[in-house]
């Protein structure tokens, strides 16, 4: 039976703002630039928006702050905070709200100035009390311990982790929006400064400024906008823990469940997907998600990414804009995974545009491998 949310809604506008460095600007200014760009892309104005979905690093009542800032009074708001995955999760809640008639035009938006304002990752969340005394460097030590366990159980190597960073850089190099576009080799990654073993600086995402926004409507009117609609075919959320010390198995994420349910809703399988945009906060993420989403077997992710398989020209295009590792990572990356997936389907990716993309997967991660959200997007031909 086809799930009742499959294909019911579509992305008709997308925008970015303040990518890289935006000195002297606030997070809400960057969010606003992104929102206005997405609305312009859709041929709409702020007066049309009646559903608002927003999470900011600095505020727990983000949707209220954003509505106030934008000068709108939406009929439906959502500030659900599952970390960086929130914006992929909003695809589900926006689709529900649109489908139920609670709103007609949904705006998902985000912005952060953390590179120029703070120079490091800004987070509103406290370090959990049973972890705080040991001073894990947050969040990298959590991912480092997952990587160490994966290496122990499956023989994954630092060289394989490095290949993830090298592939991301190769995608970023032709992308004018990407922050880091210089050459990067496996040797460069291995020689970079160790931060929390086995992860070095080049295993970590960037810290940039930037914002992004999406405009969604019900599919029955999605053809009435300037750009080709990108349809929401399958979305699912899962989580296993909040704090890393409670992760049941450090080598298996909840993406196994979110992926399965998203594929079920979309009625497609991994072999059907043309391009993947995975939340690569750290190099280990890409390996874990390729395994858990079913693109290779558990434990084989390290070997899978070798030899340029996920790089430009490889068999499986992954993070085609350069990802959080080389394009942008303004605190939370989720919305950018959706924006790039949608652009690849529309055919207007700023970097390498692949030919004939009909199905794209965007995957969000939140917390410390805690929240996993998978979305499968499709061109009109797939609905």
């Amino acid at each position: 039976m086809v799930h009742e949310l499959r294909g019911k809604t579509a992305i008709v506008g997308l925008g970015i703002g303040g990518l890289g460095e935006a000195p002297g600007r606030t997070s809400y200014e960057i969010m606003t630039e992104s929102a206005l760009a997405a609305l312009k892309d859709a041929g709409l104005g702020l007066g049309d928006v009646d559903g608002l979905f927003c999470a900011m690093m600095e505020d727990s009542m983000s949707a209220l702050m954003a509505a106030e800032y934008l000068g709108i009074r939406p009929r439906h708001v959502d500030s659900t905070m599952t970390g960086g995955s929130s914006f992929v999760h909003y695809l589900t809640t926006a689709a529900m709200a649109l489908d139920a008639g609670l709103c007609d035009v949904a705006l998902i938006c985000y912005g952060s100035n953390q590179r120029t304002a703070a120079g490091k990752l800004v987070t509103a969340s406290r370090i959990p009390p049973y972890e705080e005394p040991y001073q894990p460097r947050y969040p990298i030590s959590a991912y480092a311990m997952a990587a160490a366990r994966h290496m122990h159980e499956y023989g994954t190597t630092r060289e394989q982790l490095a290949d993830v960073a090298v592939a991301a850089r190769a995608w970023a190099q032709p992308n004018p929006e990407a922050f880091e576009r210089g050459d990067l080799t496996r040797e460069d990654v291995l020689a970079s400064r160790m931060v929390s073993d086995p992860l070095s600086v080049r295993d970590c995402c960037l810290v940039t400024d930037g914002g992004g926004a999406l405009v969604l409507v019900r599919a029955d009117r999605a053809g009435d906008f300037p750009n080709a609609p990108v349809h929401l075919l399958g979305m699912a959320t899962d989580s296993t823990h909040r704090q890393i010390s409670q992760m049941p198995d450090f080598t298996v994420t909840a993406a196994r469940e979110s992926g399965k349910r998203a594929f079920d809703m979309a009625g497609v399988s991994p072999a059907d997907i043309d391009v993947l945009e995975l939340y690569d906060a750290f190099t280990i993420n890409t390996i874990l998600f390729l395994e858990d989403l079913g693109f290779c077997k558990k434990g084989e992710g390290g070997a899978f990414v070798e030899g340029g398989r996920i790089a430009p020209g490889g068999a499986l295009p992954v993070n085609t804009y350069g990802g959080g590792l080389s394009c942008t990572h303004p605190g939370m990356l989720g919305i950018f995974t959706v924006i790039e997936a949608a652009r690849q389907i529309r055919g207007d990716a700023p970097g390498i545009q692949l030919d004939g993309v009909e199905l794209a997967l965007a995957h969000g991660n939140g917390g410390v491998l805690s929240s996993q959200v998978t979305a499968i997007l499709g061109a009109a031909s797939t609905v």
Partner: protein
Amino acid sequence: MTETGPDATFRDGLKRGEINLQKCRSCGQSIFFPRALCPHCHGTDLEWQPISGRGEVYTTTAVRRKPERGGDYNVCMIELAEGARMMSRVDGIAPEQVTIGLAVDLFVGEIDGRAAVLCKPVEG
């Protein structure tokens, strides 16, 4: 008199030099961090038991820090003999020499003047 909650009960024990662990009377699993119910079976009939003090390193990282700020240090996850896991630090060996599977003894030490569960490699 109000009964002390699990979090305070654990912390009070630590201050006395004791490491106590909750165990679920319904499903038999041990529980950490301390809480008001069993996360495995959702039972609320929990008892406190002194910890065996034995465990092994489930995963580990050496956090790199400049020498003038105190140098590198270890952060790890310990799988207790009872089954539950907790974050801790292995003392007595270099942080990068802490390896997965290393057998450790737990003890109550101090971090920044506060009682904390620490570990050392099992001798011999």
